Every structure is written in C-alpha cells, then in structure tokens.
C-alpha cells in the first residue's frame, strides 16, 4: 500500500501533514512531500483517515508495490 498525491487536485491544504506527520511533510509553498515506500501497517488506519479527510480528495492509497510512473 503506497500513499500518492494527485498533484493536480491538491490545493496545498495540509491536512495530510497534520494527520500523518510520519509520512507527509509540507514544502515551503504548503504542498505535500510524501515519503517513498510502503505505508507501515501501524499507520494504515491513519493513512486511510488522511485520504478520507483530504478536502480536495487529492490523497490516494494505491495497491502497487512499485513506484508507479506514467
């Protein structure tokens, strides 16, 4: 399970960084910097909450184990 941001939908609200500080920090413009790699199982519930609570619906949990590139 990996955490991904849809950068087009993201408005830099920053809720994700508050809810999941272990995996998300904010850059100097307020946009999320998401840690690479799989979401640790102990953080899964909070990660799902962060996805649900993103005001822009820009945070996603994807199933792919490899970094997905276009």
């Amino acid at each position, binding site marked *: 399970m990996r955490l991904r941001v849809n950068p087009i939908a*993201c*408005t830099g609200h920053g809720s994700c960084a508050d809810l999941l500080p272990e995996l998300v920090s904010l850059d*100097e413009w307020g946009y999320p910097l998401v840690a690479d790699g799989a979401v640790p199982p102990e953080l899964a519930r909070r990660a799902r909450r962060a996805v649900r609570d993103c005001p822009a619906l820009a945070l996603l949990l994807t199933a792919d184990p490899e970094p997905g590139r276009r």
Partner: protein
Amino acid sequence: MTGLLARAGATPVTAPHGLPRLIPAGAGADPGLAAHLARLGPPAHSPAGAAPQAGPAIIAAAQAAGLTGRGGAAFPVHRKLRAVAAAGRPGRAVAVANGAESEPASGKDRSLLWLAPHLVLDGLQLAAEAVAAGRAVLYVHRDPDLARHLADALAHRAAAGCDRIATEVVQAPDRFLAGETSALASRVSGGPARPGFAEPPVYERGIGGRPTLVHNAETLAHLALTGRFGPGWFRAAGLPGEPGSMLCTVHRADGAGHVTEAALGTALAALLPGLGGPGRGEVQAVLCGGYHGTWLDPAVAAGLTLSRASLREAGAAPGAGVLAELPASRCGLAETARVARYLALESAGQCGPCFNGLPRMAAALAELAAPRPAPRAEADLRRWAGLVGGRGACHHPDGFVRFVASALGVFRDEVAGHARGRCRATDRAPFLPVPAPPATEADWS
C-alpha cells in the same frame, strides 16, 4: 526482402539501402501518394475493405526489430502495442500519431509530415491494426498550411482506398506540453491540451475513456518501413542494442540548422561540425536532447555517440534528437535563463510545486545571468531544484531541473565570472529559438 504482407504477384521493391530511410533524398522529392508507393511499394497494412491482419504478427515484428519510440522516451514500441491491445475489446482502442513535437528547437516531425506524410500515415494504419483500433488520429500543431497539405494527402488515400480506418486530424495549440501523452488525450477528447493525472494510464483509459495508443510520428514512419521490409532490414542500421536510425534537428554555431537522419551510434562529432577539426574553438557547449535535455562540455560531447548507452554516461539522452552548438560568443547562462523563463511560463499551472517552483527558479536564473547576482541566487535555485522533481503530474518539472542543473555545471566558470561582474559574451543576440509564451486560457485549447 519480404515484409509482413508478401502479396502474390506484387513487384518486389528494393528496400532503401543506407540512409536516408524516412525522407526521400533530394529537396524536390515528391511527397505525394503515387511517388511514395512507387518508391517504397505497397504498404504493410490492410487496405480499405480488407480484413485486418492479426495484431500479434505486427507486434512481433516490432519486437524483433527492436524499435523504440522516437518522441524522446525511447520506450519499446512492442510493449506499448501489447499494453493497448490487451486493454480492451477489438475496435475499442484509439491509435494516435503524435506529430505535435512542441519542442521549439525540434523540426523533425514537421519535416516528416511535410516531406513524407504517407509514411507516417502508413505507420498509423499499421499500428491501428496491431491494437485493433476503431479510430485513428493524427495530432498536429495548429498550422493552416500543414492542415491543407495533410487534408490533400488524406483525400488521395481515401480515393485510392488505402486505409481501413479514416484518419482524423486534430489540431493542438502551440504549447510546450501539448504533445504530452495525457495532454494529447485531453485535447483529442475535446478539452484543453493540459496534462492530466494519468491514473489509470492513458493506454488503459485515454481518449473518450478508451484504451489509447500514442506514438510519435517518426516512430510510426519507422514502423511502416519495418512492416514493408522486415525487422532484419530495420536492424541493418544502428547498433545491436539500439538498432535503426533517428531524425535529428541540428543547430550549428553559425546559425544554420537542418534536420538530418543518422544511424544510432553515429559520433556526435560527425553530426556537429564544431566538435571536431577547425571549428573547435567556435563551440562553447552542446545542448543534447532539447529543452528538457542536457548541456554538455564540447570536449565531452566530442567523445560521445548518438545512443542512449553512450549519452547516459554523460548524464544525457538522445531525447527527440535535438543537437545544438552554442557559439563561443554567447553567454550560456543568458541563453539558459531565456529558455527557462519560457519553460516556466509554459507550465500548465495545475500542480503547486510546478507553478510555484519553476517561475521562481527562472527568476533566480535570470539573476545569475545578470551582472553581480545576489549570493543566495544560486542557493535558492539549487534548493528549489531539489524540491520540484517528480512532484508534478507530468515530467515538465523534472525536465526543467535537468536542463537547468546541467547549465549550472557546464557554465560554472560563467557563474563565477558573473559574480565578479564579468561576462564572456560578445554577442547578446538570442541564439536558441524561444517562442512567445501563453497568456490566457484560450491559448491552451
């Protein structure tokens, strides 16, 4: 030599030997359909009214030939064909020839569409058959003359019953990102030519929600020839690991430019006269791969060949074949800053890191290109460069950073000189081509 369709009774045509393969030799060569068929023989794709060939045979030929994309990413053609073919029912897919090269310094696709349109259109038909597409599109930048030229070509094909699926021409705005795959899908679907968040990817859900195959126009031209003359013929040029030839747009230090076809593995020194021999002092740097490419030191460039393997060692890639010599009389930082400003303003403005980072970097670079920049200009530039990579929906931020970072390396002496208030340039006239940037939403559709 036989191609995929060795039609009984057809007169065998001699496959082109050596180069050029794509664009008929001689500026006066006739781009018309009759001349095209006389030179190359019948196409490999099925004509109107005939049953389509089996897709796997075409895909297998592309794989055997080792054909990779010529739009910049060099992705293996057969893998893309397979992915699209597997993504939907027969007749569902859309096949697109991407002739919107978007790169101001590149003219190869434009040349191909003017001088050998039927080769591109043959390739599009063959690719459409490979993925059992129900729709074929040729995507080009808005240009009334080219549109008329293509309409004529398509009319002749229709009259001759060449094609099973009629090719539609869709015009794109003159934007740097208009040729990006998801931007293309958006534009052809009726929206603006802006990249989208490609989840699911375009090959699965693209134009109108259908699986979409997008290939560069030149790639399809190579596919059309491979279809006629076979994978073995395609491999007769180039390298074992990187077979075939590619079109390059060469910009010489004296201001002249041309499009030429070169076999993979050709020495850069053979393509750029300023790199070897008497012209050596005239070239300050080489830009390889276009405005998302890499600046190279001429001494380094002189030892490289036109291949991914060789260029990778210098941190570069062939890209879409742009090779430009920067004359010694110019300021490399000023040229880079001009291009960076253009690239920043060509941001689609959708992703925060991109529309915040690129313009700020362009401003910092403009300061570095001026006399006595503030000491933190370079630090700012490097910090922002580390911040935007991989954080956009498309590769625009990544390409921008690659281009700018290579400039800071190759022109490091110039950076030091500017800090002391000195610039080596004796000619301030702009060298690299940079068009006017967009201003309004209407510029994106």
